[in-house]
């Protein structure tokens, strides 16, 4: 099945991609110049911001829950479940990096394996 992917910060250009393939591979095959590193979902280099739509990125281990809540997606392992709109590249990384001392994470914002779910608190 094909999904329509819109890149908001590239003049809303659209691509039709195979829903079974990782978005990094699909977009690169279409000539989109994207940063990437490890290609297994662990290093965050290829993170993009999802503006609309849904993806399956259960294989990613780079993002903490705050980054996920801010819409970040690890393109090298994420596959589109619906049509999606993204901002890509480091221009989309405004909320990705934070000073860990001045802006600490709440317990529920940690990575999934160590986070305390919100409903379990108190």
């Amino acid at each position, binding site marked *: 099945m094909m999904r329509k992917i819109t890149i908001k910060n590239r003049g809303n250009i659209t691509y039709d991609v195979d829903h079974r393939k990782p978005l990094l591979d699909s977009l690169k095959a279409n000539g989109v110049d994207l*940063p*990437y*590193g*490890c290609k*297994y979902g*662990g290093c*965050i280099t290829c993170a993009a911001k999802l503006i609309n739509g849904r993806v399956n990125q259960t294989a990613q281990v780079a993002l903490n829950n705050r980054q996920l809540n801010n819409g970040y997606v690890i393109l090298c392992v994420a596959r589109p479940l619906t049509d999606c709109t993204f901002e890509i590249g480091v221009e989309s990384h405004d909320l990705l*990096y934070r*000073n860990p*001392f001045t802006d600490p994470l709440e317990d529920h914002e940690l990575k999934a394996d160590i986070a305390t779910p919100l409903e379990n608190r108190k």
Partner: protein
Amino acid sequence: MDSVCCGPGYASPTDAMMAPSEKILYTIAIYTGTGIQKPDYLCTIDSDPESSSYSSVISRLEMPGIGDELHHMGWNACSSCHGDIEKERKYLIVPGVRSSNLHIIDCGTDPRKPSLFKVIEGSEIKAKTNLSAPHTIHCLGSDIIISMLGDAVGNAPGGYLHLNESFEIVGRWENSMGDIKFSYDFWYQPRHNIMVSSEWAAPNTFMPGFDLEEVGHLKYGRELHFWDLEKKIPIQSMYLGEDGLVPLEVRFHHDPDSTHGFVGAALSANIIHWWKDSAGEWKWEKIIDVENEPHPEWPIPVPGVISVILLSMDDKYLYFCNWLHGDIRQYDISDPHNAKLTGQVWMGGLLNKAPEVNGVKVTGGPQMIQLSLDGKRLFVTTSLFSTWDNQFYPEIRTNGGCMLMVNCDTENGGMEIDPNFIVDFGKEPNGPSRCHETRYPGGDCTSDIWL
């Protein structure tokens, strides 16, 4: 000094100190994480004060792909092969910590313009050894050993990749990782049949950036490991606790008979000293404790974050950087139990002590250092790791990193930033890049080990 009788390097640390001064330096520079879609590259820098291109990049060798994150590197041969006339210190092994690609770079054919000799693909390393994220490289005789910080999908503890002298994968070097939780740096002292390794974190933990909370969840290291070098198995671990949070760079004395060594605990901002006592037991103690410093915008005082340590070739001085504070310190460790502060300089950092040096705004703090064999010239770069740079020094994206030189007084102690040396990586042809580790073609204070 090399003579026709011998292989690479020097017969002893004392001989190494009498070698000619370094005329060129090799430093990696990265675009990974900067938003510039170009390969990371190896820079050759002119460090000959008599040269017209002194203090500038004289050649750039781009890697074949993007996104490697070049980081640390090492030589194919060092003084451990000094007795072997067949050996030559010719190839730099330059890994990509994110891609796991190993770039073998020929620096011997034209030292001023290195060329790519071979690439060992990360995919091949993962398939054959289930390892990824290469970090420290040491040669030992014909063998090349590389600490790998994760398995093929970035989980700890990783292990050690063994290459032969033809740069073919032999397999895993270690026979067991024992109960070791994490990998990072290592150094060995063959006369005592000992190797020491330290702990950063799993690649999947440190690569995306630093979440302070993960330290409390034991996602970062706090142990030091002692290995039987011949048996290739860990034999003793030292739990450093709160004094040793995130122990990174490990350095034995250069003197091959010594059992003394040191590690910098990055987050605790301590220097830990180890040695073998008269009863044959390995001991450790904290010898330096860098106080956290108040910051007007921080809710808690700023830790130094000791990102690197280094020993002079005569084992007299220990140098380290506080990457967040912005200072480099020199301690006299003639008595390794009692370190005495003898020098300190400031560049960049978060405490605003020296925002500009030699006319260039320093973004980041002093990070990797490399010392000349005679101990007098310390070259410093400012970038730590792309994602961590982006967290603590986000302006580095537009300003790039820089390299400075510090003149060190080896007689009385003391340090001074050289006013005539600055390489501004903010002005690179393809845009601002970030410089990290440095090596000298004739050897330096982190490359050579004596058998």
